């Protein structure tokens, strides 16, 4: 903050005041001005993103008391632990299932919204985006209360229709599905909005041309809509894969990893190990296990975005 003010102030003064000296001249140069304006950003990213990332790698190679260098033994220890194997499985299962569901539902909703017009579309869109607007930690508390074992409002509906009550968060597979359901509820509106924006950018003439050629609705979907939206679909899916994979709020609040560590994913397990049990190096190793998958996704997102940027510019 203070940096910005001084930089801005300094640069603004240079052309007006007649000055001598190489430092003054350096500040007057175009590329120097550009660099100085970026300096706060560079400092922020270097100090609070790049440095911690490298520091995490170093930390993960220490013993619990952080007194001794132990190489890769933290990773080896984790891989052998059955709890951690469950975490790997659950993280992948959670992220992949949730993203597929979100993308499918978002695609359907975007089409439905695209179908209605004007003011009504605005109203519907406004209502459907609500889950995305409420801070996730707070809405997850609401879900926890919906799933509550003794006063569950969902069970009230089930019993009213003559079904048996369900122990929502007490049974492992049900708990896993509940976690996914909350994530889908929260994330679908994002996909919907992205796909709606993409649908609006598909030229109407393409559909008209397809109708003249006798294409039916299905053919239009597969030969016009999907190819036109391919890039945005891959960007959103990969982006959401990163965010879902690294999710913390839902599992932490809804189940805290239970029952019997069945719903733990990387972030919550790293939190339990690193912060709650105080084993910082082991916690760092847990979260670093996310890195390979995240970097692959990030690489493809970046490629897609650059390509899309070029398409728009062209």
């Amino acid at each position, binding site marked *: 903050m203070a940096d910005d003010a001084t930089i801005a102030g300094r640069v603004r003064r240079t052309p007006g005041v007649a000055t001598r000296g190489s430092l003054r001249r350096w500040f007057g140069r175009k590329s120097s001005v550009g660099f100085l304006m970026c300096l706060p950003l560079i400092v*922020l990213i270097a100090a609070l993103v790049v440095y911690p990332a490298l520091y995490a790698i170093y930390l993960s190679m220490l013993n619990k008391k952080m007194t001794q260098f132990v190489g890769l033994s933290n990773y080896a220890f984790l891989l052998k632990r059955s709890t951690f194997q469950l975490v790997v499985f659950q993280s992948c299962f959670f992220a992949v299932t949730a993203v597929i569901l979100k993308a499918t539902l978002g695609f359907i909703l975007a089409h439905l919204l695209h179908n209605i017009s004007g003011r009504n579309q605005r109203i519907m869109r406004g209502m459907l985006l609500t889950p995305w607007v409420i801070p996730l930690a707070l809405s997850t508390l609401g879900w926890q209360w919906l799933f509550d074992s003794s006063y569950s409002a969902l069970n009230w509906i089930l019993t009213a229709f003559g079904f048996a009550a369900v122990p929502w968060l007490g049974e492992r597979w049900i708990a896993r599905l509940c976690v996914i359901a909350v994530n889908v509820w929260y994330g679908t509106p994002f996909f919907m909005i992205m796909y709606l924006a993409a649908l609006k950018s598909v030229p109407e003439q393409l559909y008209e041309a397809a109708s003249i050629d006798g294409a039916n609705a299905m053919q239009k979907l597969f030969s016009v809509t999907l190819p036109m939206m391919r890039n945005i679909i891959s960007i959103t899916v990969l982006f959401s894969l990163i965010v879902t994979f690294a999710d913390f709020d839902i599992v932490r609040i809804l189940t805290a990893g239970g029952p019997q560590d069945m719903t733990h994913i990387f972030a919550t397990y790293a939190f339990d190990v690193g912060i709650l049990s105080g084993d910082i190096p082991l916690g760092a190793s847990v979260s670093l296990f996310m890195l390979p998958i995240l970097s692959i996704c990030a690489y493809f997102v970046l490629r897609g975005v650059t390509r899309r940027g070029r398409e728009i510019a062209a």
Partner: protein
Amino acid sequence: MSEATSASVGAPADRHEPGSSLTSQRRWALWGSYAALAIFAVMFLTPPFYMVMTSLKTSAEISAERGNPWLAHHPTLQNFSELMANSNFQHFFLNSVIVTLCVVIISMAISIFAAFSLARIGFLGSQILATGVFLTYLVPGSLLFIPLFQIVRALGLINSVWCLVLIYPTLAVPFCTWIMIGYFSSIPQELDEAALIDGASYPQVLFRIFIPVAMPGIIAATIFAFTVSWGQFLYPMAYLYTTDQMVLTVGIITELIRGDVFQWGKIMAGCVLAAAPPVIVYAFLMDYYIAGLTAGATKG
């Protein structure tokens, strides 16, 4: 579901056809869409609805286990008034406001300058930096919270709200910079060239031309920074442990859940109060909110 989709795909092309069969087909597609959307809207709005309903109930009504839990039979604002009189809750709210205000101002200052530089001035390596900014946006907090815990502790900021002011900009700045680059790049080059020829300096060009013209982008970025710092949960959960330092997202959980006792009426009232600011911002600035959301996938 799939019928509705395929029907809806066909609809836009049929829009201008006068034939009666097509019109009726279109009407069916329209009503089908409305019906399906209404079902989704009900499903999406159920949890918030239930949260509001619970917040209007007394503890006695909640634990009575009689009647329909989906409605408050004797609605009361007792939970809200008790919560607002609670000094801890006032602390949480105040802390959230302070943190969010600081983070929004810091993030916007950093990203407006950086985006202007990256979009217009440029220097050796600025292209690489722009790519790096986008990659930073993709780094999730759960990857870095443990090393940051060590760093925050070394700085003596553990269990202090100010550590959030330090860290939250890493979440907001990359995305804000990214979408601001997009907005700034879309401003015609002639505009600033003319100003520069007339003797304006770069900061003058930024403040007199770019910021006013790119106002919609700045609003969208500000909304993003606000929602991110208001709703963050992982960092305060990991770094704050006394009630005087907590923010709303973690405060509600620690204050109103003691051991196995969940005061659900008050928890939900707290959630409603805490969710109100972002929801209100969204209600009034929906278009900017959506513009910010969709701008992430493009450079403009």
